[in-house]
């Protein structure tokens, strides 16, 4: 029986799978471009049409008529809304996001300058948040209805219900003002300390690479509180989803099957329950990444962290609309890329989404 079937290599299904993934990726790319175009257009409409005084939004506050006229001419604000839109898209296509009135620099340069700071905050916060969130969620599910489950639930709801900016201020009051064991909200390094030579963009890593452990220590101390606040916003939703995913998996028929066929408990948990339970966590991790890279506006603001979020916050407070438009475009690109990756991750992890 076995011999009659010629051994056919598994390459065929693998190739078909690859083609399916490629097709999916192509479709996603088209959708992604559409969304970015939509975001750009929506922002344009808000600033130029919905706002009561478009020029007021596009020139520095208190600018004289000369500046107003110059901007009016450059952006074609006298022309029809359609021609304005054309000029706007033309600028974007050339990578020209406009000039921030806050910094007097091209917005694209500003964003690039600030990205490393956001990255240095986001990466450790995501690692802590994802690990903590998944771990607590699994523990809660395994100890369902017991003390640990209830305790984790209390912590999770509190973390979700807490405004991050307030948590940041309270932690500063406690650890900086009262106890004096952590530095204040003064950005990435204390005043007077020179940043290390740029290699990775992370001050801690760059200082270590340059052999400057003192600067690395100072930079790490600056990171503690903002990373904690950010991680607090990331772990809680992951915990909830990981818990409910695990509870569902533990009740599932396939886990019962694995148990009924004599597999050891540990193997049932890891090989069967966990893998299914963690599928919905993928989306929550993506939400965490989006939060850390685009939503941490107030956390960066509270800690004076010179990242992209603080840039957007200052832009809102100063009505610096070119900067805001630039940030919105950056955020849209992050979202679109991120959720395309999520789709690919699901296609890889869950065979049901492939067919």
């Amino acid at each position, binding site marked *: *029986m*076995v011999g009659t*079937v010629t051994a*056919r290599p*598994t390459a065929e*299904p693998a190739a078909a799978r690859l083609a399916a993934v490629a097709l999916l990726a192509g479709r996603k790319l088209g959708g992604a471009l559409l969304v970015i175009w939509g975001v750009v257009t929506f922002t344009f409409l808000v600033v130029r049409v919905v706002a009561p005084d478009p020029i007021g939004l596009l020139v520095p506050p208190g600018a004289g008529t000369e500046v107003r006229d110059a901007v009016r001419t450059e952006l074609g604000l006298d022309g029809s809304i359609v021609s304005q839109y054309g000029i706007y898209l033309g600028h974007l296509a050339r990578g020209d996001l406009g000039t921030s009135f806050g910094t007097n620099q091209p917005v694209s340069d500003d964003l690039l300058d600030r990205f490393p700071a956001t990255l240095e905050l986001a990466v450790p916060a995501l690692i802590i948040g994802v690990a903590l969130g998944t771990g607590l969620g699994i523990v809660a599910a395994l100890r369902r209805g017991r003390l640990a489950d209830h305790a984790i639930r209390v912590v999770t709801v509190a973390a979700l219900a807490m405004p991050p900016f307030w948590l940041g201020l309270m932690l500063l009051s406690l650890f900086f003002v009262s106890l004096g064991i952590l530095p204040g909200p003064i950005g990435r390094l204390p005043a007077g300390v020179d940043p290390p030579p740029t290699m990775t963009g992370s001050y801690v890593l760059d200082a270590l690479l340059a052999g400057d452990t003192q600067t690395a220590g100072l930079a790490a101390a600056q990171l503690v509180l903002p990373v904690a606040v950010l991680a607090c916003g990331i772990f809680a939703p992951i915990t909830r989803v990981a818990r409910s995913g695990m509870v569902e998996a533990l009740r*599932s*028929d*396939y886990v*019962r*099957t*694995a*148990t*009924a*066929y*004599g*597999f*050891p*408990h540990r193997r049932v948990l890891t*090989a*069967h329950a966990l*893998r*299914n339970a963690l*599928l919905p966590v993928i989306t929550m991790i993506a939400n965490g990444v989006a939060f850390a890279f685009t939503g941490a506006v107030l956390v960066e603001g509270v800690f004076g962290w010179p990242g992209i979020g603080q840039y957007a916050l200052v832009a809102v407070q100063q009505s610096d609309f070119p900067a805001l438009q630039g940030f919105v475009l950056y955020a849209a690109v992050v979202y679109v890329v991120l959720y395309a990756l999520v789709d690919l991750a699901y296609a890889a*992890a*869950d*065979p*049901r989404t492939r*067919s």
Partner: protein
Amino acid sequence: MSAALLEVRGLSGVFRTRAGDTPVLHDVSFDLPAGGITAVVGETGSGKSLTALSILGLQPPGLVTGGSIRFDGRELMGLDEAGYRALRGSQIAMVFQDARSSLNPVLTVGRQLCDVARLHRGLSRRDAAALVEQTLARVAIPEPRRRMAQYPHEFSGGMAQRVMIVMALLCEPRLLLLDEPTTGLDVTTQADVMELIVALTQEAGLTTCLVTHDLGLVGEACDRVVVMRRGRVVEQADAATFFSDPATDYARTLLAANRDTVDQGTANQGTANQDTANQDTEPEGTA
């Protein structure tokens, strides 16, 4: 009749919740004689599935059981995890109601079957794959090698149930427990799967326990019938005796109800809007 492979004596079960205790099994006692098929029949909620699950210690958490279950003379009640593990699969294998959800959706069918073969037969990866392929062919699954690379959602209900039966066969168990194995399948597939179960039981000399609500399915296939109702065993008898001369009113009602549903099934295949009032005058022998 040969000696009993499994003896259930005075099995009781109580669901313990915060709202209070709900007894669901009362003094359940029956035997499964070695060899042949015993059907445990009852309506939904009669406790037949809970009884079957309790044998392997798979009852839902919250169900507290008492009494005695002896397998081959050994007491199973109060076994620890390791004790049950030695039993599950290799001695007693179970096939569940919804085969598609009983398989892990993110692992290939072949992988899941090979894991079982390797665990219970101590085979190498390669030998396990060969055995799985052979066994799949034995239950009439076409293109077994291609099917092994597929995932459960790519299987029909009937094919998935065959896969579950293969999983049980791979263990070479002494007792095969089938919990509503054909529920949710269409009528033709039900018949095919039942036929397979009967053939395999005879071929492999298995002792098979078939838990079902469907008396019509049991019919000629089984050797012995145990009837359960509201958590109690109300009747147990040889199949021949049971079908010709049921001892209790309840069994008679069950048999009559079964005849009705069969008739209704046939009638509905006819013109949709017509009344089925004159079924007495048209005795159709399709059942």
